[in-house]
């Protein structure tokens, strides 16, 4: 579904991604781990062109995202993105946050968009928050709404950029549970996270990145119990 070949990304003189090659299959949950500064967030942000790539190709269902001629707005409609800082629109109610993109971009009627939004809110147990503004929500609620907002576009793939890193510990679970549900329903997901429990339980594959390279990729069982590379071992010994 996603095929990344020889991806490189530099910020000025600093080369953050040095040579990334990876394939992400449909319905697969790929968890990306690694020390901070390893390039994992940059890698994720390249997948929907929030970061301009320096060289290499990214194919999404055979559309080359690095081709300047493609309509990136169209491509992004099919890629949901979840941010560490939620980035809900503070001037819009929870409901408006969810329906704005389906209405303005997918050209759905308000009625249709709202019906879908309420279905999503129902699933998340947040129906009573529909008319409130994001400021009144807890971090965990904000992140779940952000997930609903992305899902309302019916994306083919969801990208999560450290979705629980800004949350108080007691709220991490509620967000991870939503993500687990999503994985169960067969959503293709790429998740950058420090939640090793989640990686182990939900991930089909774990990618370990360091200094702009993919050092190792394997099933969670394999990677956590029998890491092959010294750097993977060193990293895991620090966090587990």
């Amino acid at each position: 579904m996603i095929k990344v070949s020889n991806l490189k990304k530099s910020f000025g003189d600093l080369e953050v991604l040095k040579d990334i090659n990876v394939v992400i299959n449909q319905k697969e949950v790929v968890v990306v781990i690694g020390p901070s500064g390893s390039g994992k967030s940059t890698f994720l942000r390249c997948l929907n062109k929030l970061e301009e790539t320096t060289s290499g190709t990214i194919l999404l269902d055979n559309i080359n995202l690095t081709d300047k001629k493609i309509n990136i707005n169209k491509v992004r409609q099919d890629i949901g993105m979840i941010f560490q800082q939620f980035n809900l629109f503070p001037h819009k109610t929870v409901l408006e946050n969810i329906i704005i993109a389906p209405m303005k971009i997918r050209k759905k009627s308000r009625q249709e968009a709202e019906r879908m939004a309420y279905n999503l809110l129902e699933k998340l147990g947040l129906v009573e928050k529909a008319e409130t503004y994001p400021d009144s929500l807890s971090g965990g609620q904000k992140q779940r709404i952000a997930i609903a907002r992305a899902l309302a576009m019916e994306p083919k793939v969801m990208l999560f950029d450290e979705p629980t890193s800004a949350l108080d510990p007691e709220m991490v679970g509620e967000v991870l549970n939503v993500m687990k549900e999503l994985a169960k329903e067969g959503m293709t997901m790429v998740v950058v996270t420090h939640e090793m429990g989640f990686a182990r339980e939900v991930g089909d594959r774990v990618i370990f990145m360091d200094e702009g390279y993919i050092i190792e990729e394997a099933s969670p069982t394999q990677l956590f119990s029998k890491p092959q590379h010294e750097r993977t071992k060193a990293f895991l010994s620090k966090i587990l």
Partner: protein
Amino acid sequence: MNFIESIVSIIQKHGTAFLEATTITISITAVSLVIATVIGLVFAFFKVSNIWILVKLADLYIFIVRGLPLIVLIMFLYYGISSVIVLSDFIAGAVALGIHSGAYLAEIFRGAIQSVDRGQNEAARSLGMTAPLTMSTIILPQAFKRAIPALGNQFIIGLKDSSLVAYIAVTELFSHALTASAENYMPFETYLVVGFYYLALVLIFTLLLNYVENRLDTGGVAKNLKSKL
């Protein structure tokens, strides 16, 4: 005639004329602020566009307008431009005031747009929104809200600056004060009365502004709780 009597006589004699002149002050201010808002937005977009030529153009405009005394700008437009195209006093005045305020509004809008968290843009773009749609539905509404105190300030300055168009024969409030004081030889009392007209205008405007600011406030748990009760 004592002080109070003078004031009363001025109000009796000129009160209605002052009130009529006030409507001209209000309308020339309103027209100029509409012009200023359009100019301000355009140049603010130029400044945040990252396109070299547009940024420099905006810088040049702001440099010239901020560097010139308003009265010079008004005179220049009135006498300079109207030798080429005929402008009515009112239009020339409104345009000059608009061009002047526009430079300040451009900086206010630019600051407000840049103060909106980058994550807002990224969230909107990652949903597939185009750059113009993101600007109009996500960034600008938040920027406007933040700009309100500074905008209000600039609008009040614009209202007061409108008095300068008296010098190109627009018969607004201050020009009436000039005429009245020349007739009645009571400049102190006349300008005192006119001063209160301006204060009243600014007060009404300030209240209006506070109302708008409150209406746009979505902030905080307390406010959300209150709306539920």
